[in-house]
């Protein structure tokens, strides 16, 4: 599947296109099929997202939503692996394993 990500223009947070808008949770990411360029152009023009791009992903086999194909995007989705306290899931002991 193909999903969209970028950084919120105002605060820089990593965001994922959920089909209606931008979510900070990768689990919400929607398959955009062949609509990536059109959505990104529209959202960039609306100044909602910065540096948006499309990536390959797959449904997470562990049932945790969507898992980006590349480690860089999994780190973007989770947060720095060396600071679990600063991630979106600071209390999840398995979150780091999901990244690697």
């Amino acid at each position, binding site marked *: 599947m193909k999903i969209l990500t970028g950084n919120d*223009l*105002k605060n*820089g*947070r990593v965001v994922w296109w959920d089909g209606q808008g931008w979510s900070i949770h990768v689990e919400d990411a929607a398959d955009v099929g062949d609509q990536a360029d059109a959505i990104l152009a529209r959202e960039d023009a*609306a100044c909602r997202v910065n540096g948006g791009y499309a990536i390959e992903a797959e449904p997470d086999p562990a049932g945790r939503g969507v898992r980006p194909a590349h*480690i860089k995007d999994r780190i973007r989705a989770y947060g*720095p*692996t*060396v600071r679990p306290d600063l991630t979106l899931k600071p209390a999840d002991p398995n979150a780091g394993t999901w990244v690697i």
Partner: protein
Amino acid sequence: MYKYDQYDHAMVRARVEDFRDQTRRRLAGQMTDDQFKPLRLKNGLYLQLHAYMLRVAIPYGTLNSTQMRKLAHIARTYDRGYGHFTTRQNLQYHWIKLEDAPDILGELAEVEMHAIQTSGESIRNISADHYAGAAADEIMDPRPWAETIRQMTTFMPEFSYLPRKFKIAVIAAEADRAALRWHDFALRIVRNEAGEVGFQVFAGGGMGRTPFIAYEIREFLPTGQILSYLQAVLRVWNRHARRDNIHKQRMKILVHELGQEEFSRQVEEEHQHFLALGEDFPQAEYDRIAAYFAPPAFETGLPDEIDRSDPDFAVWLDQQLAPHKAPGYAIVNISLKPIQGIGGDITADQMDVVADLAERYSFDELRVAHTQNLVLPHVRKADLYAVWETLRDAGLADANLDLVTDIIACPGLDYCTLANARSIPVAQKIADRFADPQRQRDLGELKIKISGCINACGHHHAGHIGVLGVDRKGTESYQLLLGGSGDEETSQAKITGPGFDEDGIVDAIERAVERYREVREPGERFLDTYRRVGMEGFKEAIYG
């Protein structure tokens, strides 16, 4: 240290207001990202993996307590309670909001700081010996020259739209603590046979994708000719630079393609032209700047003896001090490399502790080392125990300066958009493997440097042991390098062979270190043994 005058204050404040307006227009949709990006980069604002990153300039690594407290305040108010000191003696915040950035720059301006020239194709923050003004072995304080060059070149059009970034370092001692010859342009302050002060000039160094060690291009340059000489260097670079190819734009490529002799010849030819224009700065301007760097009023008659009865304190003393030029004083190195910590990271509370120590015990001065540690440059030996107790209580009293756990590591893939692999977890695993203090001291000086990509922010080319993270079909892999150095005997590390995974690189390093222990001769550091034995003696141990 240098103090802003009215003009400096006005210039930096105007710059903040410019950026405030640029940010407002971007947020209002009146500028595209392509239009805004070069403007934010000129103010040190990058977009990284998790948020915007602001890189704050710390000229030649010098700070006072007011500035450090401001950095702590910004970390608490606008970031997530910490900052990261870099290998260019700067500080980075990794969780910045664009909408806050103008206010942060405004706060920095209040304490005579900014983020200008921490990005873009400009002369980057000029670095210097972090012991400058205090070192027993320097012939003078190199910072007035760093400041003079900074003032001469900031916003000067010819130095503002360079083919690529340009890094300068200045030192004034035989010992090189600033990785001089890894810079595009580097100055060592020397005396000639007549006793005159001048510069030994190097050019064409740099790490990154294509590492080169700088050549000496002038044995002795009179100090008063530095502006015309620097203009000549940049004129030659501008003339030939490969602006069509980003991988060949750095000056190091040109210097090494032309060769030492031809590059020097062209620079000397241009220099004659600039000298004739008579535009070098007047001595009075240097004297004005140098007055700000007058040595503090050191007390005389202080004892050199230190009570070493506390064994933990004694261990710290033996590792963390450097000789000071004034009797009764010492240079204190503060380690930012705790085992299991993140090298270069410091919390806002720790920043405040260090600021308090600087104010109370070090004439209000602090230094940032390119090794991602901090320095209290002027501490009375009689005060060392009190300083150590405070550092210990703040978690800042690790005694590992220049040892195997004093690892330089870039932020890597945990934070950086350019990175291919994580650096920090590898540094943590290596530090954990060698955590035993006795083992560290037995191994002696051993500098490990880790980069998460070929841009080499972690200085892997200059590591006694270097590690380079690469992306191998979506998986992190690590190359091992041996034999680099950033000191006065600069050398470039060489790749040992096939790479390793995250755990494998730690095992490989341990095998290399154990080979060193087996074959070292009395007094040899790891690097000395490598240079004597050569790569083959280590490859066998690493790969079997």
